């Protein structure tokens, strides 16, 4: 039976979830064997966190609490890794 996992983190990055952070986030999400989704609100709509196109189209601004949910063998690890990425402010991400 597949695991499910959820988590939330405040998005502090300037401009919000723009191109560079979106690319980093989706690349990271793709590494996990799980269906990973994110949302700007716990009530949804939920977006495929492995699609840079969908993530960008959500145009999530700064200061929104990002919700993650994952389903699959590596669900917990995926949510933890994504939260760590956002918490680290996408580390070397420049405001390009």
């Amino acid at each position: 039976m597949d695991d499910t996992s959820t988590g939330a983190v405040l998005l502090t990055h300037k401009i919000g979830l723009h191109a560079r952070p979106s690319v980093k986030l989706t690349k990271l999400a793709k590494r996990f064997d799980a269906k990973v989704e994110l949302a700007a609100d716990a009530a949804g709509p939920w977006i495929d966190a492995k699609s840079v196109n969908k993530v960008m189209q959500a145009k999530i601004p700064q200061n929104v609490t990002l919700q993650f949910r994952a389903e699959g063998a590596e669900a917990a690890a995926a949510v933890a890794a994504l939260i760590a990425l956002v918490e680290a402010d996408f580390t070397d991400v420049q405001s390009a």
Partner: protein
Amino acid sequence: MTRIELKGAFAAPGYARGSVFMLDTGAAPPAASSLAGGEEDALRDFEAALNTARVGLETLCASLKDEAAEGIVEFQIAMLEDESVSDPARSAIKAGQGVEQAWRDAIQFLIDDYIASDDAYFRERASDLIDMRDRVVRALRGEAERAPPPGAILLGEDLSPTRFLSIDWSHGGGVALVGGSPTAHVAILARSKGVPLLVGLDAPPAGMGGEALLDAAAGRLIVEPNKADIDRFETCRQAAAQQAEEDAKGLKRPALTLGGARITIYVNAAAPEGLDSVDPEICDGIGLTRTEFLFDRGAGGALPGEEAQYAAYRKLVDWARGRPVTIRTLDAGGDKPIPGVTVDGEANPFLGVRGARLSLLRPDLFKIQLRAVLRAAADGPVKIMIPMVTAPEEMAQCRVLLEEARQELLSGGQAAGEAPLGMMVEVPAAAISIQDFDADFYSIGSNDLIQYVTACSRDSAGLTHLARADAPAVLELIGRVAAHGRAVGKEVSLCGDMAGDVRYTDLLLAAGLTALSMAPTAVAAVKGAIGRAREAA
């Protein structure tokens, strides 16, 4: 042979002489759909084109050294790999539509969505999508991207960042665009690569070609120039090259006018790492530290504590080796919102709670910064500068808080240095009644002063003719503040973009300024301009 002279707006400096290369518009109608092979073949063509485009971008990405440029290309690669981008085209192809039209329609849907955004950032990304679309279209048509000959002057409606980056600029060359703006992405890239760029060019006649001269500073492109044009161009170009060479020699010398007046040259700083490659010998200290960088990085919303701030200020003090370091307290608000600090939802943030107004509203945060600055002042000369001061009582309140911070440190057994307390002069009210302000020094923030005096928003491209640095009203206020500083024996400097722009050096000296603070890259040219200036007031 007809000589054509076109005017444009300056976006990146330099001179270029070369053959005109007309850029493709990318708007050509799709080739007649090649349905002979049926949907299977069409799908295969499509996948191959996506792959060709992706490989091309990956090759381009690997050759880049600039992180901002990499970001642009990586985004396009990720979009090409994303099936939610290409699936609508696949469905349309399966339904019998031509490959190119199917792809164009799929991307147009996304472009429309981005363009409809309220957020300028997302609207600008539409140009990345167009760039990506055209790359796939070229692959479908089997067209290679026409490479301009070395040293060519590119002429067209617009130039995408990836196209700009894929061109070899090592043999010179330049760009003149009918569209674009000085703040566009390509303009930033052009400045960093040293490629001259004009934007907002007069529309060129169709089918133009031949030799051309591009003089960015003059805002002029001449196609099929005559001999007099060429002579004048070469004279200017050589003079500029000699000037740059000559200026470079004076980089580490003190700035003296022809009359022998010594002008203080400061550099503007932000994060200490930005000064890693700058030799402190080129300047007399740091005239402006933009401390907002400390507040940009807070992960999880955390604001920088006293220790983190002290560490950063201490690094600047170490870098300056005994030269004064001017630290501007947090200038949040306006175009620099900080979550959890600035006031949300102001209708006009440039006229809202920003700079000193915000610091006095949040003395808890302000004190932390003042304590960190005073601790750094124990390690070397440090000056504190308050932004956006409007009324004399604001300076009085800052002085009280500064003294409180010092007492807190001392009673806690910590070192606290002496730091002169100065103010930025950027609000017209402060400039007009400058004699009423108790400050140990003054620094004119010309960018905001111009914006407030001319009532022209800094980000409004259509108002550049009104938002002039050399507007008489702006110069009068600069002169007024300089005269007050002279009368009371306090330093007056100027730390906006004007300080580093040699077109204004004479005017600023004539206005009576004796200290200028600028980007480190501007120091050589400004010192050169000062050396040629006859008079300091």
